[in-house]
């Protein structure tokens, strides 16, 4: 650790509070001009899925409807992710600004922050910030209003369509897509839903112009990103780093000199063993050479004292509980994967059974309705294939 291979970036948490000034400047510019800045910056969704933010706003602005909504997705539930909480604690005004600008561009009068129930303690502070922000908007002649909607302990509600179902007072079960929220979102109206961090980056882009953001990162993966670093590291915490970094450099900076694997992107992400650190880059899949892995920011390090069987078992217990149960591949698949690895470990099933489980996880990837069921295969196959012996003995 401590080799300082990676440049630390200080944009998101930079102590800036000139909300009045920035908003009044932004409100004088045309919508097209602002969208072009956002598209030009190369900003992609920071929740993990990586949809181009400028395009999302543009599509929603073009949708014809008299009512539209902006939603900030603060249902940060992916194991190993905790950056959004820190953004909402330290720089909530940047997120609120991002929402208000989005509202102006797409023609929405109402914004919601869907805050996970586990973060209820943030509400008093956040509500104060929202009140202050409304006063600024009023001065500038904007009637855009933001309110908090609380979740109640459901990982799946971080999935955008489940989140909207939940806001509509229903079970948080994912919808079929299309239609996408840009056409039919909350209450069937065109909706922009962005991750907390994405909205905070919008502040930087509108304040400093797209170039400052675009100059960071590589190729298709532009800008900086917050990483939540945890597990076997002496310096767990939140770090803003450039996209496109090599996983080896990351481990040199954050590992404890005994790192055997890094889980990139949480339980829904991929487990990378030591031998693949060098060829793995952190960014959106695109033109990067070698393996490139996207992440919502979760980076969990495991050293040689850890059993990857226990790690995988913990993930599968998580998915089995958090699967919404709506579609069969995910509901039954998660149970069977968990029971299956336990049976192999106990010696009740032959080790070849792992191959059958790998095929099951592939089936889930193809047939599950939403990202939860589809992504179980990521950690399952990357752990079983790279640490097969630990699964058996």
């Amino acid at each position, binding site marked *: 650790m401590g080799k300082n291979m990676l440049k630390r970036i200080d944009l998101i948490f930079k102590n800036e509070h000139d909300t009045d000034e920035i908003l009044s400047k932004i409100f004088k510019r045309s919508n097209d001009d602002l969208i072009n800045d956002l598209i030009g910056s190369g900003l992609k969704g920071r929740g993990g899925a990586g949809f181009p933010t400028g395009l999302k706003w543009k599509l929603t602005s073009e949708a014809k409807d008299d009512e539209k909504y902006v939603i900030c997705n603060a249902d*940060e*539930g*992916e*194991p*190993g*992710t*905790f950056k959004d*909480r820190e953004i909402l604690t330290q720089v909530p005004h940047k997120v609120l600004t991002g929402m208000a600008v989005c509202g102006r561009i797409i023609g929405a009068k109402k914004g919601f922050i869907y805050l*996970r*129930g*586990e*973060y*209820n*303690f943030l509400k008093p502070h956040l509500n104060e910030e929202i009140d202050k922000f409304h006063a600024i908007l009023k001065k500038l002649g904007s009637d855009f209003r933001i309110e908090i*909607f*609380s*979740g*109640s*302990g*459901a*990982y799946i509600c971080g999935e955008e369509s489940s989140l909207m179902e*939940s*806001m*509509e*007072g*229903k*079970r*948080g*079960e994912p919808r079929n897509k299309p239609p996408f929220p840009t056409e039919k979102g909350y*209450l069937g109206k065109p909706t922009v839903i962005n991750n907390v961090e994405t909205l905070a980056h919008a502040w930087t882009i509108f304040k400093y112009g797209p170039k400052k953001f675009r100059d960071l990162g590589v190729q298709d993966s532009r800008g900086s990103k917050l990483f*939540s*670093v*945890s*597990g*076997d590291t002496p310096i*767990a*915490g*939140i770090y803003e780093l450039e996209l496109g970094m090599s996983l080896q450099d990351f481990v040199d900076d954050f590992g404890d000199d005994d790192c055997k694997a890094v889980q990139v992107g949480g*339980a829904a992400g991929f487990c990378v063993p030591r031998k693949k650190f060098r060829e793995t880059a952190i960014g959106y899949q695109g033109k990067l050479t070698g393996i490139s892995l996207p992440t919502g920011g979760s980076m*969990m390090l495991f050293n040689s004292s*850890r059993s990857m069987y*226990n*790690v995988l078992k*913990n*993930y599968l*217990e*998580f998915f089995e*509980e*958090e699967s*919404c149960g709506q579609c069969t591949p995910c509901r039954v698949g998660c149970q069977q994967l968990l029971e299956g690895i336990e049976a192999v470990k106990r010696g009740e099933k032959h080790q070849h059974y792992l191959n059958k489980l790998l095929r099951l996880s592939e089936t889930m990837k193809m047939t599950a309705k939403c990202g939860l069921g589809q992504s179980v295969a990521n950690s399952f196959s990357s752990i079983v294939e790279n640490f097969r012996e630990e699964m058996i003995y």
Partner: protein
Amino acid sequence: MTDIQQLVGELVKKHGTKREKLLPILQGVIEKERSLSDYAMIEIAKQLGISAADVYGTATFYSFMDTEPRGENIIRVCKTITCFMKGKNQILLALEDALKIKLGETTPDKKFTLLETNCLGWCHKAPAMLINDEIYTDLTIERVHEIIGEYKNK
């Protein structure tokens, strides 16, 4: 009028009767009562003009909406990977010892309920737990006894 009828009435007055207000209303009942009784769910259904099955189906989807009676203080220990690696089992044992109950149980004086939960978002300060809406991180066995002592004296 019963207490629950009155509570639901106040919540409906505050939020309105639209379906999209169901979660805030359920959360309002939980905040006061700690859990949702059948009676409360039927009352909500009546006042919103939807079926009780719909209310029950929605409420039971969410892990923070308990339909079993709970204590005044609900403790939720994070069991997901980093907290698991950093000793959440010891924390759980310490809590069971301090409260003289097992995981999932409520103390006879109805003051505490001990539960586990999935990732709380404090992996860099594991192990972590929630008591109601308060977060406690970097837990040790000693710290657990201190915290429970403070709550017992409240």
